[in-house]
C-alpha cells in the first residue's frame, strides 16, 4: 500500500431504501464521500436516521450503495473487517472464549487460516487479557454484565485481526460510568494495536475524545457537513476531555450537528 492510498474511501455514496409497507422509496444518504487512512480512528456523527449505520454496513459488505462506490486500499478488493454491534450480540450458547474465537473458527474451516489451533487459542487468550476478561473465559454471556459483554464483543471483532474495525454505537446501551471506562479502554487498545477504526455514534463527546477525525453528517438525506480534526495524539488521557482545545472542538461539533441550516 502506498503512503497516500486510503484504506477505505466512500466515493459519492448514495443510498435509497424501499419501504416494504408502502413501496415508497426513501432517500437516506444523498451524497457522502470521505476516506480513512491506515491506523486512523474516524467517527461519524449526525442526527438519527441520517444513515450512519448504513454506511457501516456498506463498509462491512452487508449492504451495497445505490450509486457511488467504496474503494478499499489501492484496488477494490475488500479487506477483512471486524464488526462491533450496538447490542452485545454474543451467542448465548458459546462461552466468552468461544465467542471470541468464532471468527477464527470460520477462517480455519475454510483452510485460509494463518493460525493453527494452538496459535488461535493463544490469540484468543491474548485478546481476553487485553479486554480484561481472562477470568471469565469459561462464563456464558448471560453470566456477565453488559459492559463485560461489550468487551467480549470488541475482542471477538479484533480476533480476526481485521484491517478495519467497524463499531456501531457500541457503548450507547451502557450506563455512563461503564461507557467512560470502555472509551478509555478502546482508545488504549486501538492505539496499541494500530487498528483502523470507523466508529458510529450519536454522542459528540465520545466522537471527539476517541477520534483523529469526526465526520459530521446532515439529517436525511445526508451529506457530509464537515470533517473535524482532533489534533491531540492518541491514546488520550481522561483529562483531555476538560482541556480548552477539547471544549473548542466540542462547541464546534455541537453547532454543526444542531444547526438547522444543514438539513438541505
Amino acid at each position, binding site marked *: 500500500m502506498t503512503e497516500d492510498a486510503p484504506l477505505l474511501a466512500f466515493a459519492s455514496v448514495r443510498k435509497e431504501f424501499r419501504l416494504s409497507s408502502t413501496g415508497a422509496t426513501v432517500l437516506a444518504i444523498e451524497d457522502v464521500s470521505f476516506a480513512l487512512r491506515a491506523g486512523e480512528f474516524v467517527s461519524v456523527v449526525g442526527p438519527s436516521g441520517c444513515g450512519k449505520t448504513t454506511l457501516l454496513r456498506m463498509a462491512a459488505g*452487508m449492504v451495497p450503495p445505490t450509486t457511488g462506490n467504496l474503494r478499499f486500499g489501492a484496488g477494490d478488493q475488500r479487506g477483512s473487517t471486524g464488526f462491533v*454491534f450496538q447490542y452485545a*450480540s454474543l*451467542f448465548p*450458547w458459546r462461552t466468552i472464549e468461544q465467542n471470541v474465537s468464532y471468527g477464527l473458527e470460520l477462517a480455519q474451516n475454510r483452510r485460509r487460516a494463518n493460525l493453527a489451533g494452538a496459535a488461535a487459542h493463544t490469540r484468543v487468550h491474548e485478546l481476553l487479557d487485553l479486554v*480484561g476478561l481472562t477470568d471469565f473465559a469459561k*462464563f456464558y454471556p448471560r*453470566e456477565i454484565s453488559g459492559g463485560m459483554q461489550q468487551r467480549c464483543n470488541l475482542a471477538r471483532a479484533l480476533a480476526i485481526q481485521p484491517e478495519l474495525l467497524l463499531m456501531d454505537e457500541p457503548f450507547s446501551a451502557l450506563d455512563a460510568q461503564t461507557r467512560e471506562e470502555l472509551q478509555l*479502554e478502546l482508545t488504549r487498545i486501538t492505539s496499541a494495536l494500530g487498528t483502523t477504526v470507523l466508529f458510529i455514534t450519536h454522542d459528540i463527546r465520545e466522537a471527539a475524545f476517541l477520534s483523529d477525525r469526526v465526520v459530521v453528517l446532515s439529517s436525511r438525506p445526508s451529506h457530509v457537513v464537515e470533517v473535524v480534526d482532533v489534533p491531540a495524539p492518541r491514546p488520550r488521557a481522561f483529562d483531555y476531555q476538560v482541556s480548552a482545545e477539547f471544549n473548542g472542538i466540542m462547541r464546534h461539533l455541537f453547532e454543526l450537528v444542531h444547526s438547522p441550516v444543514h438539513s438541505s
Partner: protein
Amino acid sequence: MAVSSNDVNLPAIGVGTQGRRFLLPRLLRSPAIVFGTASVVIGLILWEFAYRLFHVSPLVLAPPSAIAAEFVKLSQQGTLETDIAVSTKQFALGYVTSSVVAIVLGLLLGINARFRYVANPWVQALYATPTVSLAPIFIIWLGFGLLSKAAIVALMVFFPVLINTAEGVRMLDPHYIDVASAFGTNRREFFWKVLLPATQPHIFTGLRLAVARGIVGLVVGDLFGSTEGLGYLILNASQIFNTTILFVGTVVLAGGGVLLTEALTLIERWVSPWTRVSR
C-alpha cells in the same frame, strides 16, 4: 485493568459454603426436589385417608396401598414386566423415529418459506385431526402388533416436535444473523454454528411436550385392539371392573412419562449447558 467481582451475576444455584454440612448431594436438596417430594407424599397420604374415612367402594377408587400391593403382585407374576416391556418398545420405536423426522422437517419448514407454504395446509389439517379416529386405520394397515402401536405414538409425537422446531427457527434473533453475516459465515456454518444451537431449546420443548402425547397414543392404540401392553392391562382391568389394576397401569404410564420428561431435561442441560444459566 481490574474487573471487580461485582460485575458478575453468579447463578444462584451452586453458591454457598454450607454444602459440606449435608450428606445429600446438592441436586437432592434443591427446593424443587424437596417441595416436590413433600407434595407427592402428602397427596398420597390424603388420598389414602380419604379412601378409608369415607368408605369408598373399591369399584370407584383404589387407595395407594392397594395399588402398591397390586403392583407387587403383578410384578411377581411377571405379567406387568411383559406389559411394560411391550409398551416401552412400541413407545421407543414411535417416539424416536417420529422425533428425528419431525426435527429435520421442522428445521426445513423454518428455513424454507416455500416448503412452509406447501406443507402448512397439511400440517394444520393433520394437527387438528383427532388422532383417536385414525388409530383403527393404523391397526387395519399394520396389524395389532408393534408397528401399528408405534405408528400411533409416532403420529402423536410428530406435531409438537415439528411445530416447536419450526417456530424456534422462525424466532431466531435477527442480531445473530447480523453477526453471522458480519463475520462472513456461509450457509453451512450458519446452520451448524448458529441456527441449530439457537433452536435447540425449542426442539427440547417440543420433545418434552411430545412425551405426554406419545403416552396417550400408546394407550389409544391398545384400546383399539391389543393382546398385551399397558393399555391392554388397563382395558382388561376396566372390563373386569378391577379398579386397582386400572390404577396400576395408569400410575406406571404416568411414572414413565415423568421419568422421560426429566431425562430429557437432564439431556438438555448436558447438550446445551447455557440454557440453565438464566434461571
